[in-house]
């Protein structure tokens, strides 16, 4: 399995976790960050099942979710489920790093969440 290639940034002054990168902390405007990586499983915070897909996706629907990792990193990803009805806020997700988009034959990798049943 591919390693999750996400780097998040924890403010050295106030501890706020940022993802993606900001040049200054959104809370205290400090410029000093410690790099951290998503840890453990994630908790589903928000999700939707999209039926009108943008250019570049040749499938019936996509389920997109935002989840929070055990160390506070929050990140969007695709959720592998047959229907949004299978999901509930607060459920645990197993993250992986997989192909999320293919443009002109070029693969883009990103976060893919699998519900833990």
């Amino acid at each position, binding site marked *: 399995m591919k390693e999750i290639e996400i780097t998040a940034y924890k403010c050295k002054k106030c501890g706020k976790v940022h993802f993606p990168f900001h040049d200054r902390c*959104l809370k205290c405007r400090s410029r000093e960050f410690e790099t951290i990586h998503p840890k453990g499983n994630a908790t589903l*915070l*928000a*999700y939707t*099942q*999209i039926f*009108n897909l943008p250019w570049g996706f040749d499938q019936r629907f996509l389920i*997109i979710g935002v989840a929070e990792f055990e160390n506070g990193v929050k*990140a969007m990803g695709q959720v592998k489920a047959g229907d949004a009805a299978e999901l509930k806020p607060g459920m645990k997700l197993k993250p992986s790093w997989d192909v999320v988009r293919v443009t002109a034959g070029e693969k883009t990798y990103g976060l893919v969440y699998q519900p833990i049943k």
Partner: protein
Amino acid sequence: MRNVAIIGAGMIPFGRRDEDTLLDMLAYAGLKALDDAGMGEKSVDALYVANMGAGILQHQTAIASSLADRLSLLPAAADTVENGPASGASAIKNGVLAVASGYYDYVLVVGGEKMREVTGWRATDFVATLTHPQTEYIYGITLPGMAGMFTRLYMEKHGVTREMLTAVSIKNQKMGALNPYAHVEMAITKEGIMDSPDSVVNNPPMADPLHLYDACPVSDGAAAVLLCPLEMAKQHPKTAVLVAGFGQATDTHTLAEREDPTDLKAVTLAAKQALDMAKLKPSDIDFAELHDAFTILEIAESEHVGFFKKGEGGKAVLEGKTSLGGQIPINVSGGLKARGHPVGATGVAQVTEVVFQLRNEVGKDRQVKNARNGLTVNFGGFGNNVLSFVLRRVEA
């Protein structure tokens, strides 16, 4: 700072305008505003053009320069303003600041977008380019998708129901059917889009829990306003409208980084700035044009502006408080939901509608009685850049 007045306004019918280029539409709307102000051959000092996507959709850039040339405004200063779906209000704000500063006297602001010349999935992808490229866009998130996530959270936190969302849709399409500028001139019923077996076909899911009729259409269109110092407004034929207040605020680019994603902080701040500048409270506003790109946004914005407490906006729609003749009529134009949402045009179209209302020009079926103060909210990104105006009729 000088007080700034809107002395001319114009727009063209929104919809699918295959026969017109983007520049055609911008020129038609610009000329309407100039004629409305009785400018004749008088010069304009500056032109601001609001547009989000000509570089992507039409493979055309520097459109303000093109429009200045097309309208024979030369040698007026000309700038294109791109601020996503809030480009229109941003362009007006820049025009207002330029006149208020004393640097320019006459400023023409034109907003327009031509979205129907590409396929639906290209248009969806184009709008999605405003999301964060590495942490959102790559996943296939769309603006309806953002709205879907937001809707589920807002429903859970504030008790909004599908019936409330549907009521927004029905109300706005009813008003759109009375608005000659609206893209969608078709009234709909609850039975047709929610209650009957046919509603499953008529109104399919779009971005769960939102359905097709919860979203604005993809439209072509343009609108324009002409600004000048208030003290010069008397030289022009129409009742002047004062820019009594404006505000603008930003929020995090990614939805995931908001402490409470249901809190539209930029809406609250922008509207508060506009109301404070106008020395008004939300209850002093007679009507509003809110950015209902999705039905949930009309309800959420009505609460964040302060017309209703959190959790009360949806009930207010069901009780008719936001309908014409109600406590605070919202989107009597039909809103983005029915007028359409050519992204660069929308913020200008909202202001244009308020001007027409304050001048008592929209006809008795849509006219807000005794309208003196109107408010707009133009919502950029997914709430990460929001502008608000308070406009006031200048009594003769």
